Structures are given as C-alpha cells and as structure tokens.
C-alpha cells in the first residue's frame, strides 16, 4: 500500500487568491491541489497525496499558535505517514508557516517532514534544525527542480533509508554532525588535504570552525542633542521576579520592558537573570549593568533629546548564535520602527 502524504500549501498556490486572500482560514481538501499534482507524480506511486491543507499566509502569521493547532488537527485527520510543505521559495511568511507546520508535525505526530525554501528565506534559519528544507530557487520558476528533490527526500525517510550529505540530497544542512564511513582512512585523507593545502589547491575541511559575521559600521550621530538613545543589554537585567522567565543561560527569548516613569533602577525594582557571572553586584544596583540613572540625567541636562523608554534585554551566556541573531534582528527592527537614533549595548 502506498504511503499516505499530506501536503501543506498557502492560499496563493491553492488558487484561492493573492495577497487579498492572505487571511484565508485553514481548510482541508481531499487529494492533491496545485503544486501537489506535480508532487504526486514525483512520488511515483510509492506514496500518494491523500489530502491538502491550505492556509492564508497572513492568517498564519497573525494567529500562529491557533493556526498551528487547527492545521495540525486537519493534517492528523488524514492519518498521514509524512507531511510535505511548500515549497515556499523566497516568500517569508509562507516559509515561516511551512517550517512551523513541519516542526509541529514532527513533534506532535512524530512522522517525517520535508519543505523547500530559498536560502535567504527567514524560515530557513528558524526551522532548518526541525525539518529537511530543500534548497530552491527564489521564485516559483524553481518549482520543476524542487519537486523531485522533495519527493525523493520524503520517500527516503518513509522507507527508512539513510539520508546522505546535504549537497548530495539537496537539503539545507540542519547543523548536526553525522558519522559515515569514508572511502579512505583518516590518515590518507589528512595527507591528501595536506598536499592540496601545500600546493595552494582548493580543499574542503571536514570540520568547519565556528565563524562570526562582520557588518560595516553605520554613520555616526550628527546631532546628539536631537537624538533618541536606547539601551539594550546582554547582561540579563529584568524587572524583579523575571516575569518572562528569561533563562540564566542559553536564552531562547529576549525581554522588552518599559521604563516609563522610571528614574533609576534599584534592587527593589530590577535584578539580573544572567547565570554567567556573580549576580551580587548587579542585583545590588542594576544601574551597574543598565545605566538608566545616568541616561535620565543626560536627558534632563539636554545632552540627549530623549531616552527611549523601552529597553531590550537578554542573557548572553551560552546563547546560540542563531538565537542571538534572531533577537538582534527583531530588536533592531523595533528600534528602527520607534525612530531611535542610536543604541548603547551593555554587556558583562
């Protein structure tokens, strides 16, 4: 009997409509719809699309938890063996939805999942650990190439066959190290690589070292007296009691707190959530990490025009680069939207 596959797509690929229909609510249809027809063909009879679940991109983005729950229920009713989502190409909201659906399916239904996205789709960084994401072109023109690769990956998982290297299988690396038996022993591989490096020929390291990004510096503040300055910290300063439960290490979230009416931080109002240093001094006087007292003073003195009354905080200790990047991007967007001129980031 053929394996049962459910396909998740958005309103556009289901032919419901474009942006004007993006608030379309989750809906299930029997059999394949839109790109599912090609996918069904690529599955070659070993697996079959028994149902398609459709959801508008805006509806998903605006009601993530609720939408996920509804979609999961609709998927579960088909009693599938696997779920394929997208491909979403470079559509950010669609990619995020595909990733989130795959993640939820893997966690709740414990069955294989595959989706497809363009490398720069924000869904890639968010969900590449949770599901196989096939590398696609940036637009639907890449559909023809993406479908067979996605079909092959889902079939391999269904049959319990080993999944090969990302470049061979066409998926974006999940970032996990996997053992395999190479053709040659390690010493021979090392000497081969050595000879190439000595000759200046290209070679590929078997273990890439962790790397950090660089960004070009932004232009300076022209007129400080007209500037709005915000504070951001990785020192873990939070309102007393740590209302959002930011983790002491390996933070999975950041906090966003108002300082309206706050002239200075104190042991009564704030503390640190950071587990990476002796918290005694920061708890005694949180201004030692987040200098709110001085910022207020400078605001009064007119050195700066305005102290931005929301501060952003997380714990830098052991926090993954991926999470830190995500926090950084979100915080930067919020500060930009609030017309902040410049930012002081404090770290312990």
């Amino acid at each position, binding site marked *: 009997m053929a394996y049962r596959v459910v396909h998740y797509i958005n309103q556009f690929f289901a032919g419901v409509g474009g942006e004007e229909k993006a608030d379309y609510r989750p809906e299930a249809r029997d059999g394949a719809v839109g790109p599912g027809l090609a996918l069904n063909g690529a599955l070659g009879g070993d697996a079959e699309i028994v149902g398609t679940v459709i959801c508008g991109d805006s509806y998903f983005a605006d009601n993530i938890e609720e939408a996920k729950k509804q979609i999961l229920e609709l998927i579960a009713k088909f009693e599938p063996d696997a779920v394929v989502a997208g491909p979403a190409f470079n559509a950010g909201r669609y990619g995020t939805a595909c990733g989130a659906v795959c993640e939820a399916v893997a966690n709740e239904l414990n069955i294989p999942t595959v989706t497809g996205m363009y490398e720069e789709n924000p869904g890639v960084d968010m969900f590449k650990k949770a599901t196989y994401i096939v590398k696609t072109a940036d637009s639907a023109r890449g559909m023809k190439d993406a479908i067979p690769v996605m079909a092959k990956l889902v079939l391999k998982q269904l049959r319990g066959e080993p999944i090969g290297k990302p470049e061979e299988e066409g998926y974006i690396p999940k970032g996990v190290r996997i*053992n395999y038996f190479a053709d040659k*022993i390690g010493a021979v591989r090392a000497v081969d690589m050595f*000879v190439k*490096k000595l000759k200046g020929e290209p070679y590929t390291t*078997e273990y890439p070292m962790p790397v950090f990004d660089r960004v070009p510096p932004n232009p300076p503040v022209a007129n400080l007296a007209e500037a709005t300055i915000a504070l951001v910290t990785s020192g873990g300063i939070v309102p007393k009691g740590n209302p959002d439960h930011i983790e002491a290490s390996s933070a999975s979230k950041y906090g966003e707190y108002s300082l309206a009416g706050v002239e200075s931080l104190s042991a009564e109002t704030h503390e640190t959530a950071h587990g990476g240093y002796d918290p005694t001094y920061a708890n005694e006087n949180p201004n030692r990490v987040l200098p709110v007292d001085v910022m207020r003073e400078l605001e009064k003195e007119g050195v700066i025009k305005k102290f931005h009354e929301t501060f952003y905080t997380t714990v830098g200790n052991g926090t993954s680069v991926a999470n830190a990047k995500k926090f950084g991007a979100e915080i930067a967007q919020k500060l930009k939207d609030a017309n902040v001129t410049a930012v002081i980031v404090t770290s312990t």
Partner: protein
Amino acid sequence: MKLELHKVKVTDLKWGDKTLFDGGTLYVNKAEIEEMLLEDERFAKVSVDFAKPGESVRILPVKDVVEPRCKLEGENEVFPGFIGDVDTVGCGKTLVLSGAAVVTCGRIVGFQEGIIDMSGPGADYTPFSKTNNVVLVFEPKEGLEKHEYEAACRMAGLKTAHYLACAVKGAAADEVETYELPCFAEAMKSHEGLPKVAYLYMLQSQGLLHDTYVYGVDAKKILPTLIHPNEVMDGAIVSGNCVSACDKNNTYSHLNNPVIKEMYARHGKDFNFVGCIITNENTTLADKKRSSSYAVKLARLLGVDGLIITEEGFGNPDTDLIMNCRKAEKAGIKTVLLTDEYAGRDGASQSLADACSEADAVVTAGNANEVVVLPKMEKVIGFPEYADIIAGGFDGSLREDGSIETEIQAITGATNELGFNRIAAYTG
C-alpha cells in the same frame, strides 16, 4: 636511519605445547604465558584467551592493544625503557607478527576502558576486530593502587607481545618493508622543489593513568623533541593511559601510526618528509603554552613549510591542538589537523572545546557520541558487567538480552585520531 620491518602474517591462533609459528598459525603455550606474567607479584590471577575475526566474541574492559614485535638485527630491543634498554631503536631489522595482537583486559578504573567486538556492527568500528587477538585478563592483588596496577598491565602486554614475536624468529617474512630517512644535513638538501614537511605528534600526558611513555620517560615531563619515525615503529612510544577507549592511541596504533606510514609513502613525491616532533598534552596552562611554543619553534628550526598535527583524547587536548595550529600558522607553517568530535548524541553540540579561524584544514575521525546497539555475543572475555560504567555507556546500557546500547566512545579505537579508520563526519 634505516629500518626493515619483516612482516610475518598470522592468520590463525591455536593452543599448543610450545609457542611457535607454522603455516600462518601461531601456536600459543597458555601456561607458559600465565607463568611468565605471574612472576609479577602485583597480579593475583592472569588468564589467556583467544578472540579471532568473525567470532561471536566480545572483549571488555580493554586497556591496551600491542602488536607483537622483536628485533632481529640492530641495536637494542623493542619497547626501549620497558623490554629493551634505553638506548636508541629504529635501525636494523624488526620482526612483526602482523595480523596478531595482544589485548590487555582488566578493571583498572571502573570506566574509561573499551569494548572490542569481533563480529557484528561493533566490529565495523574497531580496528581490532580484524586482528587475531591473544587476550590477557588480569586480576590484581588486593590493595594494589590503581596506578601500580596500570603499570603492571602495561608491562604484561609488552612482555607478551615481545615473547610471541621472539618465538617466531626464524620464520620467513611474507613481506619486508623498508623505512629510511637521512640525517637532517642531507634531508635539507634533497628533493629540491618539494615542500619540507614534518609531523607534530601529540601525546596524552595528563597524569597518572593518563600518560604516555617515550623511551620509558613519562611524556608530561618532556619538552617537545624530535623523534625519528622509525623509532616509533620499534616501540619508542608506549601507551600508559586509561582514557576514553575510542580516541586514545593504544600502543598498537603508535607502532603502526598511519600518518607516519602515509607520509613515508608520499615522501619524495609530494613533499620532503624530514621528521617527527613529539609534544605532550599537560593540564596546566603554563605547560600548554610552553609546549606549543616549543614544538612550533622546533618546526621553525627545521624550516618546514607544513605540519600534520594529530591529537590524542578530547576536552583539554583540544586547547593544545588549537594552540599548536595557531602558533604554526602564525609562523607561516601550513597545518592539517586530525581530531575527533564530541557533538552530542544528536550531533548538534559544538564538536571541540576550542576553535580558531586558522584551523581551516581539519580531518575528523567522527562523532564519538554516536549511539550504537551492539548485539549479544556468544562469549564475553573479561568482565561484562562493566559495560554500564565504561565511558560512553550509561545505566541500562547493558540490556537484559545481553546487548549493549552505547556511544561509540566506548569502542576501542573507534575514533582514533591518528586516522586509523575510515570513519568521518559531515554536517547534515
């Protein structure tokens, strides 16, 4: 220095009244070995057993593996400082019982020793499922301190290896391999146009039960120094450690160091292999700094263009590896590193405890945390109850049906950082 390895191929083991070699079979007098080893008063009991390729046999806990060797011609005897005198080795002719190995087995500390399966999935991971193994199982005298017990086991393995090889003297070699590198004065002038390279050989030297011996000297007490690769083939480097089974270099892999072998093979073709530098892996930071600087200084004195660097163990030796790499690259010496990884069971954690951007050419011997299931074997040599507490094993790892669920860290030689095996890893 010129050394001939006279390799006699052992294809089978049998018990006999006299230890001798005949038609590929090594006959072993069990009583004679037991008697010889019991001369050491530190042992209460010694027993000898066989484990051959393909058999449904598991050995645990394994301490060391030694290849039987003895000198046929040339100065001194193999394993200088233990069997031989402390004079130089590496010249003349050495008899090698290839295809045979002495495996020492005993509980020294209740963890940190390994598993060898002679068949099944576990056999794919250990190089010693392919050798005909003479297994020594020890029990110490009551109250013997652990490091004394380790020394006794170490000596017993070397003695037995030497004893077996000596009994085969006179047998015709199946193969003779010749290894020769000239003195530095000559080496510097030869192979014009080829880059000069050396091998930086890191030795585990963290303390009692974590040591390696060079001519009988505890390696943590040495400054990095030069060694001729032929000396290594005669047993100048002996393992004395009980660290994680998968990536400690047992004496067998020192004797058969595949990096040395491969560098010899490409010598004069792709590069001019001028020699080996040995260095240690001590735990004080001052020692780490001193040794890495000193080792790289030796490489600079040799004027080499490149270094292959191999690590032993994991954790703090990662710091030595990275220091060696960074200092060499800063001195303009191109490096390739050989290591293994501890990326967690899911492979998602950081593999090494240290990193640097200069380390852009790394060969990996795999993720030691990968979990495998080793099915029940018909026969277990040693102490099966230790599967639970061996490194990489965990409570419940010895299942009721006799199978073992474990990380490959517990398998002897599985992620050998001399590059002994085909295992590797990629980012998936």
